[in-house]
């Protein structure tokens, strides 16, 4: 299941990052991609795509800093 999530998030990120390759563990903030336009699109995307709700408590850098991190967050929220 997490593989599907990962593929989908990877696709969204690569579309958002002007085609630049980002590895699953790369820190997207360190690469300079974590701007606010991207951030709210990402939240909208994962909420809609995976039918989950990102809440205040989920706003931790560790949850959003890489493809790996977002995949894990979505996986946890879907299990909850």
């Amino acid at each position: 299941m997490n593989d599907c999530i990962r593929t989908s998030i990877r696709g969204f990120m690569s579309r958002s990052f002007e085609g630049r390759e980002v590895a699953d563990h790369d820190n997207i903030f360190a690469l300079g991609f974590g701007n606010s336009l991207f951030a709210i699109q990402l939240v909208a995307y994962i909420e809609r795509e995976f039918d989950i709700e990102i809440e205040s408590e989920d706003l931790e850098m560790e949850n959003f800093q890489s493809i790996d991190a977002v995949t894990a967050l979505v996986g946890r929220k879907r299990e909850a």
Partner: protein
Amino acid sequence: MTPALESYAEHAAAMRVFADEHIVPFAHRIDQEQQIPREVVERMREAGLFASGFPERLGGTPGSKADPVSATVRHGMIHEALGRASPSVQGLLNVHHMGGSAILRWGTQAQKGEWGQRLSSGEVIAAFAITEPEVGSDASAIQTTAVPVGDGWEVSGTKTWITCGQSADIFVMLTQSERGPLAVILPRDTPGLRIEPILGILGCRGYMLATLYMERCAVPPERVLGQPGFGLSHVVAEGLDNGRHNLAWGCVGLGQACLDASLHHAAQREQFGGPIGEFGQIQRLLARMMTDVHAARLVCWSAAVARGRRDPSAVQESFMAKYLASTMTNRVAADAVQVHGASGVGPGSPVETAFRDARIMELIEGTTQIVERAIARFGLQGR
């Protein structure tokens, strides 16, 4: 199936009637006295306008959960009706929704419980404070600080050009902390907060603007919104995204007001033995205005549908709607003055006020240049 724009005609008409009855009669006074009378706010409360756009379970408009697309289009139409009647009143509802949506989207359950019903009923009016004397477009560079003290924070700095700064009950405020951008809720009665009105601006003179001076204002943990570091990218971004959408619809309303006045004037005013509306050059102005207003409304509708569906493209669509509608309303207001001749610049002329109000629209919720930059960047994504 997405309902067509025409299917909302009844709601649009009802909003128009409300605005004609309860806001239009005050519009000139609002511009002159630079204040929105209490009775206008009271009528808006009674009509449930403050609830629009908020989650239904927190007091938002009934029915919005079952049909979020229609609810979002109707929400836009409220802003259109207010923009047509008085852009200042639209501004009040807009900043309330910007601040309120940031709280109700990113607040904790306890914060949602504390503020939801009060924001939705309009008992508490919110405003949104980012801009500072030295920082406008580049919100990431703000200088207002939040310093950890005990289990809370202490906020010091200055915010300026804050719509409804003179009247709002709470401010959603962006600060800078050692852990990155931090958004907080600052109630108006916070010790250390001093509020100074800004008077005599060009347009939207009923915005009730103010400068806020914060001197070691205590912010307990329950007034922090979201987590430190996410204040700009998520909390404030939520409000700004809503603000662009609301303002776009407000601009359509302002454009419509200019168009209505121009059509009326062109049919009534006679020169050279006939109505000026029969002159080809005036007709060209009218045709351009009609088409411009219609196009902007359709782009707003499209953005509203995307928002209602929670489509990630909604952010981009709202930028485009704001861009098109705010530039449109400036063209249309200028053309309306031209169609009116001297009577379009005279004291007390609604077109004169609209011309001044329109100018503000290209500055707020992102200047035209900042909005252009964002739209182009969306276009370049994935290239």
